[in-house]
């Protein structure tokens, strides 16, 4: 036995480790973890895309945005109790996030164990900015998601938060310049992450054939740009005043859009043409006319009852 053969010892031994039962054992290997990372990545890509497209309802105004949010809670119609489908998707997303982060964490640890830095300067040839910053853009996006939930779902950071009125909350939050900048930075990080991830997942899953290989890079580029343009448009459009609600929520009584509560009593605006007109005329025309709209609404109410 030569001395040199004793130099190399396994960094980790597969024999000593507890073998989990199938199919969990797949996750015990790095290739399996990459596979899970790619699958959860696909789920998260789907979420990011649908979320961005859904947010485009902001351009249709507060009513449509509100109705979209309600429609999400009503998914499944009468077949399942309200919000169950939505909660099912949320739980799936949380699981995907958890596995995506855990696999990234443990693979990063594995690579750190195996790697020794060069003393001289490295000259990377094809590793791009996106691929080399995955371990930075990932945590940035993760922290941003937590902030995003606290900001627009739980309303912790927003004194004007009105539960259930997404349009109002988005405007109230993003009209604040530092918040808008934070959203912009985080979404750039997200797109950079997607630029590498949406290509890399094909390799991890073993989806590789001469016919489609050139399309993989294109797919990732288009996906990243679509997400970037869509998501950046919201803070920018709020800052420039294209998306604006003059600080009023359509769930406040004075707005004239009250569903099943407040002064409107049993009147449901969604079924009420007159109230709808009042709402439209009231929106975006300043205090004075809004007052009129409220008045008309009052009349409409009278006629209905």
């Amino acid at each position: 036995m030569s001395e040199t053969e004793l130099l190399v010892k396994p960094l980790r031994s597969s024999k000593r480790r507890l073998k989990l039962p199938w199919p969990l054992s797949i996750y015990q290997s790095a290739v399996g973890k990459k596979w899970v990372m790619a699958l959860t990545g696909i789920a998260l890509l789907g979420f990011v895309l649908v979320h961005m497209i859904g947010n485009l309802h902001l351009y249709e105004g507060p009513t449509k945005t509100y109705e979209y949010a309600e429609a999400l809670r009503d998914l499944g119609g009468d077949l399942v109790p309200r919000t169950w489908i939505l909660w099912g998707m949320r739980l799936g997303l949380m699981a995907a996030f958890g596995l995506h982060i855990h696999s990234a964490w443990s693979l990063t640890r594995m690579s750190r164990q195996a790697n020794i830095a060069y003393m001289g300067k490295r000259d990377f040839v094809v590793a791009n900015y996106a691929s080399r910053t995955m371990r930075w853009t990932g945590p940035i996006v993760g922290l941003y998601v937590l902030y995003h939930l606290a900001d627009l779902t739980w309303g912790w950071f927003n004194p004007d938060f009105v539960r259930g009125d997404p349009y109002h909350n988005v405007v109230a939050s993003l009209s604040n310049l530092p918040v808008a900048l934070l959203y912009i930075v985080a979404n750039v990080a997200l797109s950079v992450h997607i630029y590498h991830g949406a290509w890399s997942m094909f390799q991890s899953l073993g989806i590789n054939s001469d016919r489609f290989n050139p399309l993989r890079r294109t797919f990732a580029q288009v996906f990243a740009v679509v997400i970037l343009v869509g998501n950046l448009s919201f803070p920018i459009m709020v800052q420039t005043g294209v998306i604006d609600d003059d600080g009023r929520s359509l769930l406040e009584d004075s707005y004239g859009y009250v569903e099943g509560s407040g002064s409107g009593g049993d009147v449901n605006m969604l079924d009420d043409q007159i109230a709808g007109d009042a709402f439209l005329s009231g929106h975006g025309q300043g205090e004075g006319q809004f007052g009129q709209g409220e008045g008309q609404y009052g009349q409409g109410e009278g006629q209905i009852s």
Partner: protein
Amino acid sequence: MAKTISVTLRIWRQDGPNAPGEFVVYQVEDIPDDASFLEMLDILNERLIARNKEPVCFESDCREGICGTCGLMINGQAHGPQKATATCQLHMREFKDNDVIVVEPWRAESFPVIKDLTVDRSAMDEIIKVGGYISVNTGAAPDANLIPIPHQTSSAAFDAAACIGCGACVAACPNSAAQLFCSAKVQHLNLLPQGQAERWERAEAMVEKMEEFFGSCTNHGECEEACPKEISIDFIAWTNRDYVKSKLKRRIGP
């Protein structure tokens, strides 16, 4: 008389596996630019020996780019700046007069330095030991020609078989992953009919052995760029597929 150049070398010197290493600067004058990089190091060593100094320890064998013995990190690139070239086939004409050239050994936790620029690459042998061969009887040489293999398949297998096991992929990888080496060795056999009998065992055993020694692939593609044989990262994808497929289908058994 061939053109000559003079270069400044910053070479990693390290007495042994546990000794601390450091860069030592050597001014080498009058190197013919037709000399290969290794011949340039030979000239340096002759001069060092003439002055009674310890020569720089580096590995080489065939010096025609087919054995995989040589391998140096030159100016931050595995095997230096020329694409598809092993260190022995890199020539000094690729450098300019008065260039500073930084020379380091391959660096990875599983490539410990033996001396100076020589590293122990036996971790790669460990991967081969668990499946980089065919143990079923495939007959004598003429029998190979009796098995019809589509041209595309045989040429893909041949591309994988071009791997000379130099370790540049590990050296170039920011994660010190050996995916390119391992997948070339797996696919070389898994693509061919003769390799089918042990296909799934091979994929599992070699990948799992690799993961004992090396890091995890993040699909940068640096390995493919560094590879003197231009082995494609397509093989990595195919090996990932073989590995997970095997895990999913072999529910019973070892």
